[in-house]
């Protein structure tokens, strides 16, 4: 066990993958000499060479598109998109090529790409640096989408993503980059929880609270705060956003009868929509109240001085829990829907 920050854990995962498989190459802007704007790739070019850790020209469509060609040639490219808001120039290559190449070729060609994307807000950044674009990719068939919430998962899930023969979008909760945790770096990958599995991170009996990536910590904090109020929250870390591993969620909601989902992305067609729909389908007779979504607003990410309003925080999550419980101290009266 070593204590690593989330960035260090990702760095260790990349290093391990580069060591283990000569077909792994890293592509991105400023990932080489600089080691990435978040230092996630620090030291890797020095240790593995500029043919394995490739500083590319400034063009995201080409980062993805040449990775497709490298995959065609048998490589396992790991692309870094510098910030969430810069993934859109590469959207066409992701949606029309990466996601479809395997099915297009009836299985002949594999696209074992990993696309790393630092995402989410909360670090006081300018425009385009705090987006939560995961729903676009969850809606895109042919892709897998995952997001770790802690250093151990960051390390293990990254290695699993790189080893996976399907393309994987790997969303890194950038405001948790400096969070530290114990990481077991030598445990055999086959014994690890599969990257597709969700995980109950706090047991509880009154409400099921689902989140992923940056808000898992906040959700756990909310669960702790709620105990003071005598409310027992079960917290589930999705880990995999596509496909979602529903079994633990369904089992949890069938026990608690109440569901709250929280994410930073805007509410409309954010992941909460799908989870609410599926859980309603699968747990209709168990639900005591409608699933509650505590999310970013349906606005472009606001200037950073306003982000504290946009981002769900402990209070807003607890307010959502109150709503799910139908408690009168719910602040928002959101059940006044007309």
């Amino acid at each position, binding site marked *: 066990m070593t204590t690593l920050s989330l960035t260090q854990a990702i760095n260790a995962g990349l290093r391990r993958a580069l060591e283990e498989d000569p077909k792994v190459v890293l592509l991105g802007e400023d990932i080489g000499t600089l080691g990435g704007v978040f230092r996630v790739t620090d030291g890797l070019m020095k240790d593995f060479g500029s*043919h394995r850790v490739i500083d590319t020209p400034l063009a995201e469509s080409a980062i993805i*598109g040449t*990775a497709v*060609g490298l995959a065609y040639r048998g490589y396992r490219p790991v692309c870094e998109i510098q910030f969430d808001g810069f993934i859109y120039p590469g959207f066409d290559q992701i949606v029309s090529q990466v996601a479809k190449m395997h*099915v297009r070729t009836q299985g*002949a060609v594999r696209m074992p790409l990993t696309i790393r994307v630092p995402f989410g807000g909360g670090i006081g950044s300018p425009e385009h640096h705090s987006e939560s674009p995961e729903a676009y990719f969850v809606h895109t068939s*042919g892709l897998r989408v995952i997001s770790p919430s802690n250093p151990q998962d960051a390390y293990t899930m990254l290695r699993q993503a790189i080893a996976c023969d399907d393309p994987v979008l790997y969303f890194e909760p950038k405001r948790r980059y400096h969070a530290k945790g114990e990481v077991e770096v030598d445990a055999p990958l086959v014994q690890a929880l599969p990257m597709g599995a969700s995980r109950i991170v706090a047991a509880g009996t009154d409400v099921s609270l689902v989140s992923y990536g940056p808000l898992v910590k906040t959700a756990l904090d909310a669960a702790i705060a709620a105990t003071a109020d005598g409310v027992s929250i079960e917290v589930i870390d999705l880990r995999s956003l596509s496909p979602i591993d529903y079994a633990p969620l369904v089992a949890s909601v069938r026990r608690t009868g109440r569901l709250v989902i929280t994410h930073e992305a805007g509410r409309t067609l954010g992941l909460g929509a799908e989870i609410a729909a599926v859980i309603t389908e699968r747990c209709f007779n168990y639900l005591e109240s409608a699933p509650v979504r505590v999310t970013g607003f349906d606005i472009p990410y606001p200037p950073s001085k306003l982000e504290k309003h946009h981002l769900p925080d402990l209070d807003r999550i607890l307010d959502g829990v109150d709503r799910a419980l139908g408690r009168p101290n719910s602040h928002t009266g959101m059940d006044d829907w007309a």
Partner: protein
Amino acid sequence: MSHLRQEPTGRDEMTMHQLITAEGIRVADALLDEFVDDVDGEQLRNLYRDMVVIRRIDFESTALQRQGQLALWPPLLGQEASQVGSVRALEDEDFIFPTYRENGVAYCRGAKMADALGVWRGNTNIGWDPYELNMATPQIIIGAQTLHATGYAMGLTLDGKDSMALAYLGDGATSQGDVHESMVFAASFQAPVVFFCQNNHWAISEPVGLQSHVPLAGRAPGYGIPGLQVDGNDVLAVLAATRWAARRARSGGGPSFIEAITYRMGPHTTADDPTRYRGVTELEEWGAKDPITRMHSYLLELGMLDDGAQAAIAAEADAVAADLRLACISLPDPAPQAAFEHVYVDAHPLLEEQRVNYLAYLNSFGEQEKTSVTVQGSPS
């Protein structure tokens, strides 16, 4: 309010390299000659045969579309020399990234043409196994494949291989951002990739002059990539030009760009009506530059095309077409579950659930027909 488009000043002109004129006369070209020194009469006749067979396949496919056997067909009529000359310059291990129109290339690479037609029949999106032919499947997103070729070529460099990748693209494609980014990456990494642009003068209804007032090959030097214009209806010149580019690529000379000047004699696809946007004079003008006719004249001149040889080629073309037709109309419809296959390599529980549920649903009808006519609408 004035109009937008104006004649630019200072229009550049480039030399179009040529080895056989429209009249079938062999002319010298200082750059290209050395690359076809070794091409003897029989090889010339083979190039001719390729073109004849490909044209026959193209006609047969158009006919199959008219008869409802194909949903759509993108004819390559007029572009036979560009396709044959370029693909015949390559080694088998060189990897090709085509568009939807390189069916002549696919034929030369050994594709089973009925399988290739499966794409246009609506059976599948794969016309051949990419790794069997060393040729990617048809790319419909304009320009996207140029990045794939560049990435593949980067992989070749990493592997220390001395082979190369070749991307086909159209004149219209040159406007796409992806094509630019390919050139940037190819130049930055000195990737062994050839960008082979068939300037067939049209992007559906848009004349090439809308994409650029100046020669497309003139873009390349701005990236530090040599650009060459070649007569795309001259199969020998195309062969030579592609060999020139291939030699550069294989010997560490980096990328190059070839603009093959040719003409789309047919519609964009069978769904297109070119009479809406272009006149007959243009067609006639290009008819006089036909790639097959000129090679025919040249071979006659060389004495390489007696009646027997000609008959043999015609017979081969007929046989290929007959086989193609038979194989095409016998292509079985894909089974419903095919829709769910190969979306992912690894297990995907949610999609598996959808598959199982849908097949159970289908089975529930038993022999009884579903009541609805599912798909209305018109051809595209």
